[in-house]
């Protein structure tokens, strides 16, 4: 009944369209108006009319957050394998190849170091376009190494989550254990006095929400992101009730005391820098 996986892809598709569609003019899924594409791009993927936050890739996210030319990627040589020889309607190995081709990523997270307004940080960004940003062995290992690197180099740690898929089913129990692995690494980092800022973006669900994403010393979310443990469909099937409209949104989480701030994308970089200065200054 309950899972660390999520199952909301349809709702998500209905509620928020992915990415900024090609073309000069875009029909905004937030306000339904025709918006000049350049105006969205100029605002880092945010609708000028209704503040709808479009999907941005992990690479774009890094460009938005880091000072130009400062990013150095780590652990890109860690590549996913198929430990279960898993096949649903498509073998996992083929799915991996297709996702790699589609996204240009080797797996669902990019990690490394870079500067945020001249402050050096360790940073990881998950990309919801790669098997729904789900966490398998590679995502877990890259993040654990990132945390350890932040500890050794005494860097503030930033992880931006965009993971609707939670723990990746195709790697079975090995994926589930990445939750414990990264959480244990964060406990050590915390013990050593490290600062961890967790940034939640649409969507952050299941095993990702129930591990590192929730463990930030400070937790920031973009507006109207879908964030939660169980998928809305699982909950609806269990309680047989329609869910409230704002359920599992950033605003819902702020109201219930689980996140610290909601920050619009154009302000994210300066807000992160400001928090670093309070704790690391």
């Amino acid at each position: 009944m309950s899972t660390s996986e999520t199952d909301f892809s349809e709702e998500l598709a209905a509620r928020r369209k992915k990415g900024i569609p090609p073309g000069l003019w875009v029909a905004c899924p937030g306000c339904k108006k025709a918006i000049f594409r350049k105006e969205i791009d100029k605002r880092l993927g945010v609708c000028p009319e209704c503040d709808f936050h479009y999907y941005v890739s992990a690479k774009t996210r890094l460009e938005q957050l880091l000072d130009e030319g400062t990013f150095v990627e780590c652990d890109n040589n860690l590549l996913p394998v198929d430990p279960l020889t898993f096949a649903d309607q498509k073998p996992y190995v083929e799915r991996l190849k297709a996702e790699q081709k589609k996204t240009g990523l080797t797996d669902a997270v990019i990690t490394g170091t870079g500067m945020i307004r001249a402050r050096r940080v360790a940073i990881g960004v998950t990309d919801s376009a790669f098997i729904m940003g789900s966490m398998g062995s590679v995502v877990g290992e890259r993040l654990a190494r990132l945390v350890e690197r932040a500890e050794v180099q005494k860097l503030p740690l930033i992880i931006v989550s965009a993971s609707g898929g939670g723990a990746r089913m195709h790697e079975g129990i090995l994926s589930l254990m990445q939750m414990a692995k990264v959480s244990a690494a964060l406990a050590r980092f915390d013990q050593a006095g490290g600062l961890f800022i967790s940034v939640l973006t649409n969507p952050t669900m299941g095993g990702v929400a129930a591990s590192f994403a929730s463990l930030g010393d400070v937790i920031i979310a973009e507006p109207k992101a879908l964030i939660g443990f169980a998928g809305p469909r699982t909950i609806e099937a269990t309680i047989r009730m329609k869910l409230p409209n704002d359920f599992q949104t950033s605003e819902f989480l702020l109201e219930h005391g689980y996140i610290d701030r909601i920050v619009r994308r154009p302000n994210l970089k300066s807000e992160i820098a400001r928090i670093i200065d309070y704790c690391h200054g």
Partner: protein
Amino acid sequence: MLDYLPFEQPIADIEQQIESLKKLPEPTAESMQKLRHLRKQLADTTRQIYDNLTPWQTVQVARHKNRPHTVDYLSLVFDEFVELHGDKFFRDDRAMRVGFAKLDGRKVLVVGHQKGRNFKDRTENFFGCAHPEGYRKSMSKMRLAAKYHLPIITFIDTPGAYPGIGAEERGQAYVIAENMFEMSRLKTPIVCIVIGEGGSGGALGIGVGDRVAMLQHAYYSVISPEGCAGILWKSGEHAEKAATALKFTSKYLKEFQIVDDVIEEPLGGAHRDHHQTAARIKSYLVKSMKELTACKIDEMLANRYSKFRQMGRYLESSLADEEQTNSTAQFNGAIG
């Protein structure tokens, strides 16, 4: 009277024959002979079935309504149990039982999911699906145990953490994360045993320890077979296929180095012999406690960390190293 699972029909048939023979008013030499033969046949058939359980059959055994639950082990394994109910937050979650207990004279803290046997119990216990208050209760008592150096024992038996509006409002994701985070560094020995269903995050929320074991016919999975089938095969009816694909039985978990030990069940599964199962769990716990308490605490914590740290399978390629240099260069170029 046992409730037979569909694939246990051959066992049911033989047991029925045995019963009717036993009812004969005057046992004859011939009937005694027949009875001995049937008993041997019963053992052979049961072994034949249980040595070859499919993953889906394993799930049914793990969920068997007569399978021993946490409260059964509390009375069969421990000398006493002093339940601690308070989460000091919202309410006493009956899906999560916590309290002091004595294991072979040693003071310990026990934490376990509780499913419940009859309908009333099961409803009260949310079918073993804990809410955030259950995880909070477990963590506050585990901290207490660590403060007084009491070893911790957890029994994992849940379909998953409860999916509901209240659970989300009270931070289900946060409490599971927090439990793993703290359990990874609690300064006291922790032994976790999956006794039935190890349902994803809800299981792992009390599953970080120095030793993780599972009963032979338990399963431990990233997602329920029904949930997985619903997402990847678009229908829960394919649960049997998903059960096979997920490789979540004890044999695989040992192979993947997720569990340290598999505790063998009595012939025909734990539900056929609670006492024998409890005795095996007890001897495993006593042995593990002896080993762990002999260990220096820093060493134990280092081992606990590296045990979870090494979990996962991936390729670390030096070839990719070269590619990495290239792609990093390109990537930096793209940013700069």
